[in-house]
Structures are given as structure tokens and as C-alpha cells.
């Protein structure tokens, strides 16, 4: 489904601030894989997301989606295959536009945006149905501006918008990190059910170790632009947060440094 071959990315090349963001990343996701990604500060997790989604282009290496090399395609063209939820709840929705208008824009993913009305009666029925799954009562507030929603509601809506057109790949970039614990739990639960129901190939960055172990069928650990640990479903079930941290120390030779790390 998704293949990264020898992907490298350098920031500020040639300057004193030169930084290896990714170096020789090899990663292959099978359809339906739900991979959680953990790592210390500056490990390259977000860069990996940006390389896959097309916000950044790799300096070298290949990104393939369903066998098609896409590393030269700009973000707006790749978004046909990729749904994305950002860390910032404000980032995934347009605040001055209504809930139904936001959903209509998400619905047009991969289609030509022409001069037909974005919100039609038929689509509104679909939107209500989809919003109902969130259990937040948003289906009765189709004409409310998204800016009036709380952070948790906006993030739940972002998740729905990113997924309800069934993208080939779903990228979640610490999408629960900015929410308070109960809202984060809600969005995590929604993520789990949506990914399972639609069988989406998912890559989820998190700094919550417990979440990383609980969710998904595979876990990768990154450090200094490399994937240093790749744990499959069977081994993942036996892992604990302490063992995970020990693994990190053993491989990288230092303690996991992430000021936001949540042990669970």
C-alpha cells in the first residue's frame, strides 16, 4: 500500500544548522496496517508524515502509494489518496465556514471542484448520518460555524472529514496531543473504531507510549531520522511501556528524551 525506499531529508543543507531529518528510511505498509510511531524529540516523526503527504519532498529515495511513485507530486495531488489529521485542532477545519460546508469540501477529495453546489440535499443526508457516528450531536448543528465548536469537537470532525471518503492512507500526527484527557480519550476511541470499520491503512504518530502499545497492529520507534525498532503484532502484545523504554536505551545508548512523553 505504502512503500518508502531509502528516503532521506536534510534541513538547512550546508548551513551551520544543518540537520539530518530522515536518513535512509525503509518502510512498507500492507493494506489495513495500523502502525503507531514513537520517538524522541526531533526523531523525524513529523518529517516522515510531511514526506508521505507531500508537504516536503525527499532529497533522495522513493515514496510509493499502491505501487505508484509519488515523491514528486505536490500535496494537493497526493491528497487524493491521503487523509490527514493534524495535532492542532484548528488546522483540520475552516473556522468561518459551517459544519456542512467543511464536510462538503472533504467530500470533494479527489474530485474536480467545479461549479456545482457543494452542499446538496442528498449530501446533507449523508453528512447527518456520518456525524451521527461521532455521537456529539453535531448532526443537528450542520449550519453552525466550525469556529464555535470546542477543540475536541473540531478534532473529531477533522477525523471524520479525513476518513469518510475512505482514503488509501490515513496519517495522524499526534492528533490527540492538544486535547484534555477526556477529549483525547474520545478522539482515540473514535480513531480506533473508524480505522477498524473502514480498514484504513494508518500511520499514527503519538507521544503517548501506552496509546502506542494499545492501538494498531505494529509499532515503529524512530531516533535521529532512522527507524530503530519495528515491532510486529505478536511481539507488540507482549511489550510494556518499561520494556519499550529499555529497548530505546539499549539501541540508542541514551534515555528517551521527550518532554511531552506520556507513559500511560
Amino acid at each position, binding site marked *: 500500500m505504502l512503500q518508502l525506499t531509502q528516503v532521506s531529508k536534510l534541513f538547512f543543507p550546508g548551513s551551520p544548522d544543518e540537520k539530518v531529518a530522515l536518513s535512509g528510511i525503509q518502510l512498507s505498509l500492507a493494506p489495513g496496517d495500523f502502525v503507531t510511531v514513537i520517538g524522541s524529540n526531533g526523531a523525524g516523526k513529523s518529517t516522515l508524515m510531511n514526506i508521505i503527504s507531500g508537504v516536503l519532498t525527499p532529497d533522495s529515495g522513493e515514496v510509493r502509494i499502491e505501487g505508484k511513485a509519488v515523491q514528486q507530486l505536490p500535496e494537493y495531488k497526493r491528497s487524493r489518496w491521503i487523509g490527514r489529521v493534524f495535532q492542532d485542532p484548528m488546522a483540520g477545519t475552516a473556522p468561518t465556514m459551517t459544519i456542512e460546508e467543511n464536510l462538503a469540501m472533504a467530500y*470533494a477529495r479527489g474530485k474536480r471542484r467545479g461549479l456545482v453546489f457543494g452542499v446538496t440535499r442528498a449530501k446533507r443526508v449523508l453528512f447527518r448520518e456520518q456525524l451521527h457516528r461521532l455521537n456529539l450531536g453535531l448532526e443537528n448543528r450542520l449550519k453552525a460555524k466550525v469556529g464555535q465548536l470546542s477543540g475536541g469537537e473540531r478534532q473529531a470532525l477533522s477525523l471524520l472529514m479525513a476518513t469518510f471518503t475512505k482514503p488509501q492512507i490515513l496519517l495522524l500526527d499526534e492528533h490527540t496531543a492538544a486535547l484534555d484527557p477526556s477529549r483525547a480519550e474520545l478522539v482515540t476511541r473514535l480513531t480506533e473504531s473508524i480505522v477498524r470499520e473502514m480498514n484504513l491503512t494508518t500511520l499514527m504518530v503519538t507521544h503517548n507510549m501506552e496509546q502506542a502499545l494499545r492501538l494498531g497492529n505494529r509499532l515503529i520507534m524512530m531516533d535521529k531520522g532512522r527507524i530503530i525498532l519495528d515491532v510486529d503484532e505478536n511481539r507488540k502484545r507482549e511489550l510494556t511501556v518499561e520494556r519499550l523504554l529499555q529497548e530505546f536505551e539499549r539501541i540508542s545508548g541514551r534515555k528517551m528524551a521527550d518532554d511531552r512523553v506520556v507513559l500511560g
Partner: protein
Amino acid sequence: MLESMLNSIPGAIQLGLLYACMSLGVYITYRILDFPDLTVDGSFTTGAAIAAVMITHGYSPWLATACAFAGGCAAGTVTGLLHTKGKINALLSGIIMMIALYSINLRISKVPNISLIREHHLFASISPWLLMPLVVIVVKLLLDAFFHTDLGLSLRATGDNDRMIRSFGAHTDNTKIIGVGLSNGLVALSGAFVAQQQGYSDQSMGIGMIVIGLAAVIIGEAIFGKRSVFWATLSAIVGMIIYRIVIAVALRVPGFQSQDLKVITAVIVIFALIIPTAQRAYRQKRAARRRSAELAAVLTGDGQGGGR
């Protein structure tokens, strides 16, 4: 004095309708795309010049007005290209285009001003009182409809959250170019109407148009607030009519002369920009003070505090 002020109002309303397409154009760039576009000062004259030249060459005034719209769209498209493909700052790309248009407009009209008095222009056969309300309503409704299409939604989202709409596959360079193009088309359309109504086109008639457009948009917002697209386009139109009335009345005040027009406009815009910001800051401060007093009361009430 009062009587002369009242007498000036009908003329001001008519002028407001003639300029209303321009404020709708400015609304698209300034409010929807968040792109302060100074091309307007040039493209207004472009519209007037194209219409005047074509009418004096015997073309139908309808065709001439339509071509003025197209010419404005072309000018705006170039500004959009400069900003998106050339990565030039929004303000600067508008200024560059405005300067370039100054020469281009002279090339179009050959002379600094063209008289239309003896020509067969739009208002020679139809009263502006009949035509302009119709035109403004049709343009407004078409714009409202456009902003609810898939393309229109992505254009609005471009100004609201461009990162988000890119992640759903809209090309934000294109939406910006379309928006700035459409905006300047409307501005040029307005220029064509104004030239025909006043009976001449003039090389300098576009100077200060952007500020007048901004004044109209901001006055309209102050009255109607920020609500749906329907109200926003309506408020741009009503804002322009009110601006024209304010100017007409102000010029009847003894001591003011017609050359004071631009400084009065500037003062209106300054107040219109400062007052809402100051109001908002005051309201936020008051709300914050009240809320922290509440929180303090809660804290001393249960003695424990803590939590979130």
C-alpha cells in the same frame, strides 16, 4: 444647508450602486482571500478605458462593458500569478501591477481622457436607476451562488485555512488566482459603469479606489456584522451606498471642498478600522476580568483548588 444635504442623497445612492460591484470585488480579495489587493486602483481605470475606447469605436455598450470585465479579470490574474507563482508578497504584487496598469491603461485609451457625452453608451438609453439596481442584485446573487459551489467553497477555505483545503486536494494557487481575477473583473466592471454614467473616462479615476472599497466593506460589516456570505455581499453593497451618502453629506458641510474627498475617505477608513479592534480589545479585557473574578471566587470557595 440641511436641504442641500438631503438633496444630495439620491445622487449618492446612485453613485453607490455604480460603485457597488467594486466593493464586492474588494470584499472577495480583502475578506475572503485575506489578500489586500492594490491592483484595484489600476484595474478600475482599465475597465473605464476599455469601455470608453470600444464605445467611441462604435461597439455595442453591452459588449464594451463585458470586455471591461474581462480586461479586469486578466489584470487580476496577472497579480495572482505574481503572488502565487512568483512568490511575491501580496501587497507588493498588487502595487507592481497597479504601476504597470498605469502605462497599460494609457496604451488602451491613447489619451488621458475620453469623452462619452455624445456617444451611445448604456445610460443613453436606460436610466441608471433602472439598470444599476438590477445589475447589482444579479451580480450579488451570482456571487452568493458561486461561493456555495465546490470551487467557491475551496476559494473561501483558501482564505480561512489554506493548509486544510490543500490536504483535501484543492490547489490553493489556482483558487487565489481565480479569486483575485474575479475580484478585479468586478472592479473593472464598476469602472466601466462609472465612466458611462459620468460621461468620460479619465486616466486618474482609479486613484484611491482600494481605500474606498475597503471603507465600504468595513462600514457594511460594522452594520451587519460577520455572518453568512449572503449578508456579507449585501453588506458590501449597502456599505458602499452609505459611504457615498456620508461623503455627499460631508461635502455639503461649509468649509469642506471637493478636493478634501480623499482625506475624508482616509479618515472614515481609519475610524472604521480602529473602532472595531478597540471595541473587541475592551470586550475581551472586560470578559477576562469577570471570568478571573469568578474563578477566584470558586477557588476561595472550596479551599482546595487544583485540577484544571
